[in-house]
Protein backbone atom coordinates (compact mmCIF):
# COMPACT_ATOMS: atom_id res chain seq x y z
CA UNK A 1 0.00 0.00 0.00
CA UNK A 2 3.04 2.27 0.07
CA UNK A 3 3.11 4.99 -2.57
CA UNK A 4 6.89 5.27 -2.38
CA UNK A 5 8.68 4.66 -5.67
CA UNK A 6 12.10 5.45 -7.06
CA UNK A 7 12.73 8.67 -8.93
CA UNK A 8 13.04 6.70 -12.16
CA UNK A 9 9.70 5.01 -11.59
CA UNK A 10 7.97 8.30 -10.74
CA UNK A 11 9.29 9.97 -13.87
CA UNK A 12 8.51 6.97 -16.06
CA UNK A 13 4.76 7.70 -15.89
CA UNK A 14 5.22 11.13 -17.48
CA UNK A 15 4.43 11.05 -21.20
CA UNK A 16 6.05 13.11 -23.89
CA UNK A 17 3.89 16.19 -24.32
CA UNK A 18 2.69 16.19 -20.71
CA UNK A 19 1.56 19.38 -18.97
CA UNK A 20 3.45 19.70 -15.69
CA UNK A 21 3.17 22.18 -12.83
CA UNK A 22 6.28 22.58 -10.70
CA UNK A 23 6.15 23.72 -7.09
CA UNK A 24 8.51 26.21 -5.54
CA UNK A 25 9.28 29.69 -6.79
CA UNK A 26 12.32 31.06 -8.61
CA UNK A 27 15.38 29.17 -7.29
CA UNK A 28 13.58 27.86 -4.22
CA UNK A 29 12.24 24.38 -3.55
CA UNK A 30 11.71 23.47 -7.19
CA UNK A 31 11.72 19.74 -8.01
CA UNK A 32 15.12 19.86 -9.71
CA UNK A 33 15.97 16.19 -9.14
CA UNK A 34 12.72 15.33 -10.92
CA UNK A 35 13.53 17.70 -13.78
CA UNK A 36 16.98 16.16 -14.19
CA UNK A 37 15.47 12.68 -14.36
CA UNK A 38 13.00 13.90 -17.00
CA UNK A 39 16.03 14.94 -19.02
CA UNK A 40 17.85 11.64 -18.41
CA UNK A 41 14.79 9.76 -19.60
CA UNK A 42 14.71 11.94 -22.72
CA UNK A 43 11.20 13.29 -22.27
CA UNK A 44 10.13 15.64 -25.09
CA UNK A 45 7.61 18.41 -25.79
CA UNK A 46 6.80 19.07 -22.17
CA UNK A 47 4.74 22.07 -21.14
CA UNK A 48 5.41 23.66 -17.78
CA UNK A 49 3.17 25.71 -15.49
CA UNK A 50 4.91 27.96 -13.02
CA UNK A 51 4.39 31.37 -11.48
CA UNK A 52 8.09 32.32 -11.36
CA UNK A 53 10.44 29.74 -12.86
CA UNK A 54 14.19 29.60 -13.11
CA UNK A 55 16.48 26.57 -13.31
CA UNK A 56 13.60 24.09 -13.63
CA UNK A 57 12.30 25.68 -16.83
CA UNK A 58 15.67 26.67 -18.25
CA UNK A 59 17.16 23.19 -17.78
CA UNK A 60 14.31 21.65 -19.77
CA UNK A 61 14.88 24.30 -22.43
CA UNK A 62 18.59 23.57 -22.53
CA UNK A 63 17.85 19.85 -22.90
CA UNK A 64 15.37 20.52 -25.75
CA UNK A 65 12.60 18.91 -23.70
CA UNK A 66 10.37 21.97 -23.59
CA UNK A 67 7.48 22.85 -25.85
CA UNK A 68 5.73 25.65 -23.96
CA UNK A 69 5.55 27.53 -20.69
CA UNK A 70 2.57 28.99 -18.86
CA UNK A 71 4.31 31.38 -16.51
CA UNK A 72 4.58 34.90 -15.19
CA UNK A 73 8.34 35.18 -14.93
CA UNK A 74 11.12 32.93 -16.18
CA UNK A 75 14.55 34.16 -15.15
CA UNK A 76 17.36 34.01 -12.67
CA UNK A 77 16.53 37.31 -10.96
CA UNK A 78 19.75 39.21 -10.18
CA UNK A 79 21.79 36.49 -11.90
CA UNK A 80 20.29 37.30 -15.28
CA UNK A 81 18.00 36.01 -17.98
CA UNK A 82 17.03 32.38 -18.52
CA UNK A 83 19.21 32.13 -21.62
CA UNK A 84 18.08 28.75 -22.87
CA UNK A 85 14.42 29.52 -22.44
CA UNK A 86 14.99 32.90 -24.05
CA UNK A 87 16.76 31.44 -27.07
CA UNK A 88 14.18 28.72 -27.44
CA UNK A 89 11.39 31.31 -27.58
CA UNK A 90 13.36 33.54 -29.93
CA UNK A 91 13.99 30.57 -32.23
CA UNK A 92 10.30 29.73 -32.02
CA UNK A 93 11.06 26.30 -30.62
CA UNK A 94 9.33 27.14 -27.35
CA UNK A 95 5.97 28.88 -26.95
CA UNK A 96 5.78 31.48 -24.19
CA UNK A 97 2.19 31.57 -22.93
CA UNK A 98 2.94 34.66 -20.90
CA UNK A 99 0.74 35.08 -17.86
CA UNK A 100 0.72 37.40 -14.92
CA UNK A 101 1.66 35.17 -11.97
CA UNK A 102 -1.80 35.97 -10.62
CA UNK A 103 -3.45 34.61 -13.75
CA UNK A 104 -1.56 31.32 -13.52
CA UNK A 105 -3.10 31.06 -10.08
CA UNK A 106 -6.53 32.01 -11.47
CA UNK A 107 -6.32 29.29 -14.12
CA UNK A 108 -5.27 26.74 -11.51
CA UNK A 109 -8.17 27.83 -9.32
CA UNK A 110 -10.64 27.21 -12.15
CA UNK A 111 -9.25 23.69 -12.33
CA UNK A 112 -9.58 23.27 -8.56
CA UNK A 113 -13.17 24.49 -8.64
CA UNK A 114 -14.18 22.23 -11.53
CA UNK A 115 -15.09 25.12 -13.83
CA UNK A 116 -13.66 26.09 -17.19
CA UNK A 117 -12.77 29.70 -16.42
CA UNK A 118 -11.93 32.03 -13.55
CA UNK A 119 -12.65 35.77 -13.38
CA UNK A 120 -9.73 37.98 -12.42
CA UNK A 121 -9.37 41.66 -11.70
CA UNK A 122 -6.36 42.60 -13.77
CA UNK A 123 -4.88 43.13 -17.25
CA UNK A 124 -6.49 46.56 -17.71
CA UNK A 125 -4.36 48.35 -20.30
CA UNK A 126 -2.13 45.30 -20.92
CA UNK A 127 -1.59 43.93 -24.41
CA UNK A 128 -1.09 40.40 -23.06
CA UNK A 129 -4.76 39.37 -23.47
CA UNK A 130 -4.75 39.94 -27.22
CA UNK A 131 -1.18 38.68 -27.67
CA UNK A 132 -1.47 35.44 -25.69
CA UNK A 133 -5.11 34.39 -25.99
CA UNK A 134 -4.91 33.43 -22.29
CA UNK A 135 -7.38 36.12 -21.25
CA UNK A 136 -10.89 36.72 -22.54
CA UNK A 137 -13.83 38.75 -21.29
CA UNK A 138 -17.36 38.10 -20.13
CA UNK A 139 -20.06 40.43 -18.86
CA UNK A 140 -20.98 39.81 -15.24
CA UNK A 141 -24.66 38.83 -15.20
CA UNK A 142 -25.16 40.60 -11.86
CA UNK A 143 -23.38 43.92 -12.48
CA UNK A 144 -22.96 44.04 -16.24
CA UNK A 145 -19.28 44.71 -15.71
CA UNK A 146 -16.85 43.49 -18.37
CA UNK A 147 -14.57 41.06 -16.56
CA UNK A 148 -11.34 39.36 -17.58
CA UNK A 149 -11.43 35.57 -17.31
CA UNK A 150 -8.68 32.96 -17.47
CA UNK A 151 -9.19 29.43 -18.83
CA UNK A 152 -8.77 26.52 -16.45
CA UNK A 153 -5.19 25.26 -16.30
CA UNK A 154 -5.18 21.60 -15.32
CA UNK A 155 -1.74 20.03 -15.00
CA UNK A 156 -1.49 16.37 -15.95
CA UNK A 157 0.92 16.20 -13.05
CA UNK A 158 1.94 18.60 -10.35
CA UNK A 159 5.38 17.83 -8.98
CA UNK A 160 6.42 19.40 -5.69
CA UNK A 161 9.52 18.98 -3.61
CA UNK A 162 8.96 19.00 0.15
CA UNK A 163 10.85 18.57 3.37
CA UNK A 164 9.07 15.56 4.79
CA UNK A 165 6.64 13.00 3.40
CA UNK A 166 5.34 9.61 4.41
CA UNK A 167 4.69 6.51 2.33
CA UNK A 168 1.00 7.40 2.04
CA UNK A 169 1.75 10.71 0.37
CA UNK A 170 1.16 13.04 3.28
CA UNK A 171 3.62 15.88 2.75
CA UNK A 172 4.95 18.68 4.90
CA UNK A 173 6.54 21.91 3.71
CA UNK A 174 8.62 23.77 6.27
CA UNK A 175 8.07 27.48 5.78
CA UNK A 176 7.20 29.18 2.49
CA UNK A 177 4.56 27.12 0.70
CA UNK A 178 4.65 29.30 -2.45
CA UNK A 179 1.90 28.14 -4.85
CA UNK A 180 2.40 24.43 -4.12
CA UNK A 181 -0.90 23.78 -2.36
CA UNK A 182 -2.86 25.38 -5.20
CA UNK A 183 -0.94 23.38 -7.81
CA UNK A 184 -1.53 20.16 -5.88
CA UNK A 185 -5.30 20.65 -5.85
CA UNK A 186 -5.46 21.75 -9.48
CA UNK A 187 -3.69 18.71 -10.91
CA UNK A 188 -4.97 15.50 -12.39
CA UNK A 189 -2.24 13.70 -10.43
CA UNK A 190 0.45 14.67 -7.94
CA UNK A 191 4.00 13.47 -7.40
CA UNK A 192 5.89 14.43 -4.27
CA UNK A 193 9.66 14.32 -3.94
CA UNK A 194 10.92 14.70 -0.40
CA UNK A 195 14.10 15.27 1.55
CA UNK A 196 12.97 12.78 4.18
CA UNK A 197 10.42 10.01 4.28
CA UNK A 198 9.04 9.11 7.67
CA UNK A 199 6.60 6.60 9.03
CA UNK A 200 2.94 7.64 8.77
CA UNK A 201 2.45 7.30 12.50
CA UNK A 202 5.37 9.47 13.49
CA UNK A 203 4.22 12.92 12.38
CA UNK A 204 5.18 15.64 14.86
CA UNK A 205 3.94 18.38 12.52
CA UNK A 206 0.73 18.64 10.46
CA UNK A 207 1.38 17.89 6.78
CA UNK A 208 -0.32 20.42 4.50
CA UNK A 209 -0.81 17.91 1.68
CA UNK A 210 -3.15 15.03 2.50
CA UNK A 211 -1.86 11.76 1.12
CA UNK A 212 -5.01 10.84 -0.78
CA UNK A 213 -4.25 13.59 -3.31
CA UNK A 214 -0.83 12.12 -4.07
CA UNK A 215 -0.06 9.38 -6.55
CA UNK A 216 3.55 8.69 -5.69
CA UNK A 217 6.27 9.72 -3.27
CA UNK A 218 9.99 9.76 -3.97
CA UNK A 219 12.89 10.07 -1.57
CA UNK A 220 15.07 12.76 -3.16
CA UNK A 221 17.66 14.12 -0.79
CA UNK A 222 18.96 17.45 -2.01
CA UNK A 223 16.14 17.23 -4.55
CA UNK A 224 15.90 21.00 -5.04
CA UNK A 225 19.64 21.58 -5.40
CA UNK A 226 21.38 23.61 -6.66
CA UNK A 227 18.31 25.63 -5.71
CA UNK A 228 17.39 26.04 -2.06
CA UNK A 229 15.32 23.95 0.29
CA UNK A 230 15.51 26.18 3.34
CA UNK A 231 16.19 25.60 6.17
CA UNK A 232 17.88 22.38 5.00
CA UNK A 233 20.10 24.06 2.40
CA UNK A 234 20.48 27.33 0.55
CA UNK A 235 21.04 28.07 -3.11
CA UNK A 236 24.40 26.77 -4.34
CA UNK A 237 25.21 29.99 -6.11
CA UNK A 238 28.41 28.69 -7.64
CA UNK A 239 26.62 25.76 -9.24
CA UNK A 240 23.91 28.03 -10.64
CA UNK A 241 26.47 30.46 -12.02
CA UNK A 242 28.38 27.56 -13.58
CA UNK A 243 25.16 26.38 -15.17
CA UNK A 244 24.53 29.83 -16.60
CA UNK A 245 28.06 29.99 -17.99
CA UNK A 246 27.94 26.60 -19.65
CA UNK A 247 24.52 24.99 -19.72
CA UNK A 248 25.53 22.43 -22.36
CA UNK A 249 28.14 20.88 -20.10
CA UNK A 250 25.73 20.97 -17.17
CA UNK A 251 23.07 19.12 -19.19
CA UNK A 252 25.66 16.63 -20.41
CA UNK A 253 26.62 15.92 -16.80
CA UNK A 254 22.97 15.52 -15.83
CA UNK A 255 22.57 12.94 -18.56
CA UNK A 256 25.62 11.02 -17.38
CA UNK A 257 24.59 11.01 -13.72
CA UNK A 258 23.02 7.98 -12.21
CA UNK A 259 19.73 8.99 -10.71
CA UNK A 260 19.57 8.12 -7.06
CA UNK A 261 17.50 5.07 -6.37
Amino acid at each position, binding site marked *: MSKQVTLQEAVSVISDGALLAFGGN*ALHRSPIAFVKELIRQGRKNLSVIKT*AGALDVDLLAAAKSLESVYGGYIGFEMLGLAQNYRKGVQNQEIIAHEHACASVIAGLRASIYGVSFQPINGFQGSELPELTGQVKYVDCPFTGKKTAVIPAIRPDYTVIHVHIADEQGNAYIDGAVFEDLIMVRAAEKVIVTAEKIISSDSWAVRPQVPGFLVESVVLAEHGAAPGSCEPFYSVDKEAVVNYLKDPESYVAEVKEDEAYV
Partner: protein
Amino acid sequence: MSNIQAADYITVAMARLIQDGELVFHGVASPMPAIAIQLAKKLHAKKAVYLNIPGGVDAEPSSFSFYSSADPVLREGGVSDFPLSDIFDLSARGALDVAFLSGAQIDGYGRLNLSAIGSYDKPKVRLPGGAGSAALLPTVKRGILWKTNHDKRSLVEKLDIITAAGNTEYVITPLGIFKRSVKDGRLRLFAVFPYSSVEEIEENTGFKVEKHEEFTEFPPLTEEELQLIQSIDQDGSRYSEFK
Protein backbone atom coordinates in the same frame (compact mmCIF):
# COMPACT_ATOMS: atom_id res chain seq x y z
CA MET B 1 27.67 58.98 -10.19
CA SER B 2 28.79 55.57 -9.03
CA ASN B 3 26.52 52.58 -9.00
CA ILE B 4 26.93 52.45 -5.25
CA GLN B 5 25.71 55.99 -4.89
CA ALA B 6 22.81 55.34 -7.28
CA ALA B 7 21.71 52.20 -5.42
CA ASP B 8 21.71 54.05 -2.12
CA TYR B 9 19.76 56.95 -3.58
CA ILE B 10 17.21 54.70 -5.23
CA THR B 11 16.79 52.67 -2.07
CA VAL B 12 16.34 55.72 0.15
CA ALA B 13 13.99 57.33 -2.37
CA MET B 14 11.86 54.20 -2.29
CA ALA B 15 11.83 54.20 1.50
CA ARG B 16 10.80 57.83 1.69
CA LEU B 17 7.82 57.17 -0.58
CA ILE B 18 6.40 54.48 1.73
CA GLN B 19 3.80 55.92 4.07
CA ASP B 20 3.09 54.77 7.57
CA GLY B 21 0.59 51.93 7.83
CA GLU B 22 0.73 50.98 4.16
CA LEU B 23 0.69 47.39 2.95
CA VAL B 24 3.78 47.10 0.77
CA PHE B 25 4.81 44.31 -1.61
CA HIS B 26 7.81 43.51 -3.76
CA GLY B 27 8.31 40.52 -6.01
CA VAL B 28 11.28 38.75 -7.62
CA ALA B 29 14.55 40.50 -8.41
CA SER B 30 13.85 43.37 -6.03
CA PRO B 31 16.82 43.83 -3.69
CA MET B 32 16.43 47.60 -3.34
CA PRO B 33 12.70 47.52 -2.49
CA ALA B 34 13.39 44.83 0.11
CA ILE B 35 15.96 47.02 1.85
CA ALA B 36 13.86 50.17 1.38
CA ILE B 37 10.90 48.64 3.16
CA GLN B 38 13.07 47.71 6.14
CA LEU B 39 14.47 51.22 6.16
CA ALA B 40 11.06 52.88 6.06
CA LYS B 41 9.86 50.66 8.90
CA LYS B 42 12.73 51.82 11.05
CA LEU B 43 12.06 55.49 10.31
CA HIS B 44 8.74 57.13 9.44
CA ALA B 45 6.64 54.05 8.57
CA LYS B 46 6.91 51.77 11.58
CA LYS B 47 3.41 50.43 10.99
CA ALA B 48 3.88 49.68 7.31
CA VAL B 49 3.31 45.98 6.61
CA TYR B 50 5.88 44.11 4.54
CA LEU B 51 4.59 41.43 2.15
CA ASN B 52 6.64 39.28 -0.21
CA ILE B 53 6.69 36.10 -2.30
CA PRO B 54 7.72 33.63 0.43
CA GLY B 55 4.70 34.86 2.34
CA GLY B 56 6.17 36.13 5.57
CA VAL B 57 4.30 39.07 7.07
CA ASP B 58 6.52 41.85 8.41
CA ALA B 59 9.69 39.83 8.24
CA GLU B 60 12.92 41.34 9.48
CA PRO B 61 15.47 39.30 7.58
CA SER B 62 18.94 38.99 9.08
CA SER B 63 20.45 39.16 5.61
CA PHE B 64 19.46 39.66 1.98
CA SER B 65 20.30 37.44 -0.94
CA PHE B 66 22.44 38.68 -3.82
CA TYR B 67 20.56 36.62 -6.37
CA SER B 68 16.93 36.24 -5.28
CA SER B 69 14.09 38.24 -3.77
CA ALA B 70 11.90 35.18 -3.34
CA ASP B 71 14.23 33.65 -0.79
CA PRO B 72 12.59 31.98 2.22
CA VAL B 73 14.91 34.07 4.43
CA LEU B 74 12.36 36.84 3.77
CA ARG B 75 10.02 35.14 6.25
CA GLU B 76 12.48 35.57 9.14
CA GLY B 77 11.07 37.35 12.13
CA GLY B 78 7.50 37.38 10.83
CA VAL B 79 4.74 36.12 13.09
CA SER B 80 2.21 35.07 10.45
CA ASP B 81 1.97 34.16 6.78
CA PHE B 82 0.32 35.69 3.75
CA PRO B 83 1.36 33.80 0.62
CA LEU B 84 1.72 35.28 -2.84
CA SER B 85 -1.73 34.18 -3.99
CA ASP B 86 -3.22 36.09 -1.08
CA ILE B 87 -1.21 39.17 -1.98
CA PHE B 88 -2.53 39.15 -5.54
CA ASP B 89 -6.05 38.82 -4.16
CA LEU B 90 -5.43 41.68 -1.76
CA SER B 91 -4.44 43.90 -4.65
CA ALA B 92 -7.33 42.70 -6.82
CA ARG B 93 -9.81 43.76 -4.16
CA GLY B 94 -8.22 47.17 -3.85
CA ALA B 95 -6.52 46.71 -0.50
CA LEU B 96 -2.82 46.64 -1.44
CA ASP B 97 -1.22 50.05 -1.00
CA VAL B 98 2.17 49.78 -2.66
CA ALA B 99 3.78 47.42 -5.16
CA PHE B 100 7.36 47.88 -6.29
CA LEU B 101 7.68 46.85 -9.93
CA SER B 102 10.13 47.24 -12.76
CA GLY B 103 10.32 46.87 -16.50
CA ALA B 104 12.91 46.50 -19.25
CA GLN B 105 11.15 49.45 -20.86
CA ILE B 106 9.00 52.09 -19.19
CA ASP B 107 7.04 54.64 -21.20
CA GLY B 108 5.87 58.17 -20.50
CA TYR B 109 2.63 56.90 -18.95
CA GLY B 110 4.45 54.68 -16.50
CA ARG B 111 3.52 51.55 -18.40
CA LEU B 112 6.07 48.78 -18.62
CA ASN B 113 7.36 46.07 -20.91
CA LEU B 114 8.91 42.92 -19.49
CA SER B 115 7.66 40.62 -22.23
CA ALA B 116 9.89 41.02 -25.24
CA ILE B 117 11.99 43.32 -27.36
CA GLY B 118 10.61 43.20 -30.87
CA SER B 119 7.32 41.42 -31.42
CA TYR B 120 5.62 39.03 -29.03
CA ASP B 121 5.49 36.12 -31.47
CA LYS B 122 8.91 36.63 -33.03
CA PRO B 123 10.90 38.42 -30.36
CA LYS B 124 14.36 39.81 -30.87
CA VAL B 125 14.86 39.27 -27.15
CA ARG B 126 12.48 37.25 -25.05
CA LEU B 127 12.35 38.92 -21.65
CA PRO B 128 11.46 37.10 -18.41
CA GLY B 129 7.82 38.24 -18.38
CA GLY B 130 6.01 40.76 -16.27
CA ALA B 131 5.63 38.48 -13.25
CA GLY B 132 2.63 39.83 -11.34
CA SER B 133 2.64 43.29 -12.88
CA ALA B 134 -0.21 42.89 -15.39
CA ALA B 135 -2.49 42.02 -12.47
CA LEU B 136 -0.93 44.26 -9.81
CA LEU B 137 -0.30 47.53 -11.60
CA PRO B 138 -3.96 48.20 -12.52
CA THR B 139 -5.24 47.23 -9.06
CA VAL B 140 -2.65 48.36 -6.50
CA LYS B 141 -3.23 51.83 -5.11
CA ARG B 142 0.32 53.02 -5.74
CA GLY B 143 2.72 51.43 -8.19
CA ILE B 144 6.33 52.47 -7.63
CA LEU B 145 8.60 51.51 -10.53
CA TRP B 146 12.34 51.59 -10.69
CA LYS B 147 15.10 51.23 -13.24
CA THR B 148 18.77 50.56 -12.63
CA ASN B 149 19.70 52.37 -15.82
CA HIS B 150 18.47 55.67 -17.17
CA ASP B 151 18.78 55.81 -20.95
CA LYS B 152 16.69 56.24 -24.06
CA ARG B 153 16.44 52.48 -24.63
CA SER B 154 14.87 51.98 -21.21
CA LEU B 155 12.71 55.07 -20.85
CA VAL B 156 10.92 55.11 -24.15
CA GLU B 157 8.21 56.95 -25.97
CA LYS B 158 6.71 53.68 -27.22
CA LEU B 159 6.93 50.25 -25.62
CA ASP B 160 7.52 47.25 -27.86
CA ILE B 161 4.83 45.45 -25.86
CA ILE B 162 2.60 46.84 -23.13
CA THR B 163 2.98 44.15 -20.46
CA ALA B 164 1.30 46.14 -17.71
CA ALA B 165 -0.38 49.48 -17.24
CA GLY B 166 -2.27 51.18 -14.48
CA ASN B 167 -1.55 52.93 -11.24
CA THR B 168 2.10 53.84 -11.61
CA GLU B 169 2.69 56.77 -9.29
CA TYR B 170 6.48 57.10 -9.31
CA VAL B 171 9.36 55.90 -11.44
CA ILE B 172 12.77 56.00 -9.76
CA THR B 173 15.99 55.85 -11.77
CA PRO B 174 19.67 56.34 -10.94
CA LEU B 175 19.24 60.00 -11.85
CA GLY B 176 16.00 61.00 -10.17
CA ILE B 177 12.29 60.47 -9.78
CA PHE B 178 9.36 60.85 -12.15
CA LYS B 179 5.84 61.25 -10.82
CA ARG B 180 2.71 60.77 -12.83
CA SER B 181 0.57 63.80 -13.33
CA VAL B 182 -3.06 63.52 -12.32
CA LYS B 183 -3.99 65.75 -15.27
CA ASP B 184 -2.94 63.62 -18.20
CA GLY B 185 -1.35 60.54 -16.70
CA ARG B 186 2.09 61.46 -18.06
CA LEU B 187 5.30 60.99 -16.12
CA ARG B 188 6.87 64.30 -15.19
CA LEU B 189 10.12 65.01 -13.45
CA PHE B 190 9.52 65.10 -9.72
CA ALA B 191 13.03 65.20 -8.28
CA VAL B 192 16.65 65.07 -9.40
CA PHE B 193 19.30 63.34 -7.31
CA PRO B 194 21.96 65.82 -6.14
CA TYR B 195 24.69 64.34 -8.32
CA SER B 196 22.58 64.67 -11.49
CA SER B 197 20.75 67.44 -13.30
CA VAL B 198 17.61 68.16 -15.28
CA GLU B 199 19.77 68.38 -18.36
CA GLU B 200 21.33 64.97 -17.84
CA ILE B 201 17.87 63.49 -17.41
CA GLU B 202 16.52 65.19 -20.51
CA GLU B 203 19.41 63.89 -22.57
CA ASN B 204 18.93 60.31 -21.42
CA THR B 205 15.15 59.98 -21.53
CA GLY B 206 13.26 58.69 -24.57
CA PHE B 207 10.05 60.54 -23.79
CA LYS B 208 9.63 64.29 -23.36
CA VAL B 209 10.75 65.47 -19.92
CA GLU B 210 8.66 68.15 -18.27
CA LYS B 211 8.73 69.21 -14.67
CA HIS B 212 5.98 67.97 -12.39
CA GLU B 213 3.88 70.63 -10.67
CA GLU B 214 5.23 69.25 -7.38
CA PHE B 215 8.85 69.25 -8.56
CA THR B 216 11.03 69.31 -5.50
CA GLU B 217 14.62 69.30 -4.43
CA PHE B 218 15.61 65.80 -3.34
CA PRO B 219 17.13 66.14 0.13
CA PRO B 220 20.55 64.48 0.36
CA LEU B 221 20.75 61.15 2.13
CA THR B 222 21.02 61.67 5.86
CA GLU B 223 23.61 60.11 8.13
CA GLU B 224 20.81 58.19 9.83
CA GLU B 225 19.52 56.79 6.56
CA LEU B 226 23.00 55.78 5.45
CA GLN B 227 23.82 54.13 8.75
CA LEU B 228 20.51 52.28 8.89
CA ILE B 229 20.72 51.10 5.33
CA GLN B 230 24.20 49.79 6.02
CA SER B 231 23.11 47.97 9.15
CA ILE B 232 20.06 46.48 7.42
CA ASP B 233 22.03 45.39 4.36
CA GLN B 234 25.54 44.80 5.61
CA ASP B 235 26.49 42.65 2.65
CA GLY B 236 25.32 45.13 0.02
CA SER B 237 22.50 43.17 -1.58
CA ARG B 238 21.09 46.49 -2.76
CA TYR B 239 23.98 46.76 -5.23
CA SER B 240 23.30 43.37 -6.77
CA GLU B 241 21.20 44.69 -9.64
CA PHE B 242 24.15 46.76 -10.84
CA LYS B 243 26.69 44.82 -12.85
